């Protein structure tokens, strides 16, 4: 390889390892992400053309703005971010790993000169006499030291939390793990939906962005769907589907209720309560009282169907809702009397005497209704989700270690000086140096006391 090639390669490598690239990429990711929050994502062309002119629409479409988080340029930014992470770690990790695994046990003058916390003093006695006491002192006030004797000098080395230096690399690795989990989920998983009418079952679900259904490999049946409201209001309290799963004709999961925030999982596929709607027209049971005679009649009728009334009139249910303001289930009836124009009014299930106040020829009470529903379920298969959670856990642990723990080291060297000992000692911390300075001041004082006594 020529010198020029080597230079070019080094330049490329340095580019991918640089911190400046990290900052620029992060800011670019932040800025471009804004686009997808002000431009609606994944809508139909018709919806976009209502909002934007045709030129703007074509421009945005060409730039990938309508599905920007899956666009080639956004994914390229994420890839650049990942390469930067990997390159930085490859460059810096080996040295850090060496510092953690192969500590410098013997400090020479060059090392002491680099320490901003250091001290020298003379003490009575020979190194061999002092080393036990000093080793004990270091152990008491900091950490158990390793004692090395070499060239007539005694060296002590003690450290705390060496693995704190790995926190940064754990955090960076966690980001890559999260990306890997997302890729696994995208490639080997899917997101789909299915509507199941009460009392029926399905073996297929429909993925978004595609017309072809996916076979579950088992059947899911909706035994029952119900929606309940908070008393005296139309605020929904609970959407509940009761599901039964069967495989090969055999029931595997029997009548398991699911609600929002509590889904059902089978064979790695999870079903989430998402929406619901009416399936078919409801059926009603009314009690009709003829005001003039007091005669009552039970009438069963479907929505829209016309039913005859005693006395020659007829009525039909024009509309129905389960939650009419705060009053609960209500039906809008249209009564056509024997002679006269049709009249329209509301009957409330919870208040059977309500219609009497209307003063009409007939008094209606809504006794009961049956509405079949379909339940709308989100269906998701994501084999990568636990990889993502592992990554998230590592990110939190890694960043706590990186921010709040510090690798601290102390070296002590004892050299014979006539019949005394020259003691040189120093320390360093890789984080939070001010706190270590304060600790080292105390350590210094304690060591002086130790060698005096």
């Amino acid at each position, binding site marked *: 390889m020529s010198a020029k090639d080597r230079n070019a390669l080094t330049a490329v490598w340095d580019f991918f390892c640089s*911190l*400046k690239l*990290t*900052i620029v990429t*992060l*800011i670019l*990711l*932040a800025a471009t*992400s*804004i686009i*997808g*929050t*002000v431009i*609606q*994502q994944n809508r139909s062309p018709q919806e976009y053309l209502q909002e934007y002119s045709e030129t703007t629409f074509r421009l945005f479409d060409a730039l990938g703005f309508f599905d920007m*988080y899956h666009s080639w340029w956004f994914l390229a930014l994420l890839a650049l971010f990942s390469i930067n992470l990997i390159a930085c770690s490859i460059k810096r990790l080996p040295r850090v790993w060496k510092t953690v695994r192969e500590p410098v046990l013997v400090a020479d003058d060059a090392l002491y000169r680099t320490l901003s916390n250091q001290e020298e003093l003379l003490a009575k006695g020979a190194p061999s006499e002092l080393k036990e006491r000093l080793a004990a002192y270091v152990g008491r006030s900091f950490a158990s030291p390793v004692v090395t004797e070499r060239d007539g000098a005694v060296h002590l080395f003690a450290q705390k939390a060496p693995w704190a230096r790995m926190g940064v690399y754990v955090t960076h690795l966690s980001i890559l793990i999260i990306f890997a989990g*997302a890729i696994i989920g995208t490639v080997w998983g899917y*997101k789909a939906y299915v509507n199941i009418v009460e009392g029926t079952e399905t073996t297929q679900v429909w993925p978004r962005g595609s017309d072809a259904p996916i076979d579950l490999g088992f059947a899911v049946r909706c035994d029952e769907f119900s929606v309940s409201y*908070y008393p005296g209001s139309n*605020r*929904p*309290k*609970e*959407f509940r589907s009761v599901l039964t799963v069967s495989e090969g004709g055999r029931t595997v999961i029997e009548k398991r209720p699911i*609600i*929002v*925030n*509590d*889904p059902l999982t089978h064979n790695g596929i*999870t079903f*989430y*309560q*998402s929406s619901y709607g009416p399936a078919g027209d409801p059926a009603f049971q009314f009690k009709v009282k003829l005001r003039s005679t007091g005669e009552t009649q039970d009438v069963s009728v479907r929505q829209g169907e016309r039913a005859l009334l005693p006395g020659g009139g007829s009525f039909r249910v024009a509309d129905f809702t389960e939650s009419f303001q705060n009053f609960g289930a209500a039906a809008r009836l249209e009564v056509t009397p024997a002679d006269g124009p049709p009249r329209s009014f509301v009957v409330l299930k919870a208040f059977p005497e309500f219609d009497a106040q209307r003063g009409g020829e007939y008094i209606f009470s809504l006794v009961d209704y049956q509405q079949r529903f379909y339940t709308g379920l*989100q*269906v*998701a298969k*994501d084999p990568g*989700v636990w990889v*993502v*959670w592992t990554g*998230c856990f590592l*990110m*939190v642990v890694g*960043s*706590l270690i990186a*921010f709040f723990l510090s690798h601290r080291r102390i070296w002590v060297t004892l050299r014979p000086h006539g019949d005394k000992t020259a003691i040189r000692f120093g320390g360093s911390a890789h984080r939070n140096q001010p706190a270590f300075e304060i600790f080292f001041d105390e350590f210094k004082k304690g060591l002086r006391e130790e060698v005096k006594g």
Partner: protein
Amino acid sequence: MSSAQLFNVVTIGYFAAMVLFIAYLATRSKGVALVANILAWVGFAAQTVAIGLRWYESYQMLGDAGRAPLSNLYESVVFFSWTILLIYLILDLKYRQPAVGAFVIPFAFLGMTWAQLGLNDAIEPLVPALQSNWLTYHVITCFLGYAAFAVACGVSIMYLIKAGKEEGRPADTPAGGILALFPSTRILDDINYKSIMIGFPLLSLGIITGAAWANYAWGTYWSWDPKETWSLIVWFIYAAFLHARFTRGWVGKKAAWLSIFGFAATIFCYLGVNLVLSGLHSYGGG
């Protein structure tokens, strides 16, 4: 006494504390600073009781459907003010710099005033999507993170004021007057960094608990919803901040600007998204 009345007391307390912290800048009286601090502590204690009281009141009103007061815009703004006080008081215990109060307490006071005067404080039961323990973990971690960023923004503003005045002077002569009461630029820069060091893991936890909850509720931990995306944007900005400290030239003024910018993004993520954009988090508003 109801929680509503107690929150009014809290608002007045924070107003008084804010006024006194600003008065401390003018009078330089240690006594004024002491009273301001006492008011901050008393207000914080009262707000803690009020939040607990509202939680209890929800059980009284709704029976089984009672829930922690973290579920609508009113409750979130009140909780945000509380977390700002919490982070401020913790930092005050460590650094003992009352001048910082003049730049942080106003955020809490403005929050409480907006909540008490402009937001609906009715205690309503939770719709199905919000009935989950994840709501508590997600809201608490997010707001503790936001509060730390608020404090960082406050001290960054102080930094820019002080560093701006000191620019015209020879090195090592700190500015006089009110600015003499400010902590040194070195300490302001340190508080800025330490606050973000607290806020960033909390924001990460907030995003992660949000993703976990989304996975249980909707089957997908990330859907590039505007709220999710904006929280990631805020995360990118503060990640840039943390890495920028390792590059010479990005400490001091640049770091202060990035911190203010990050908090602006945080406020847009919290309020702008709900009130201006549309998406799955729309029930976080109104």
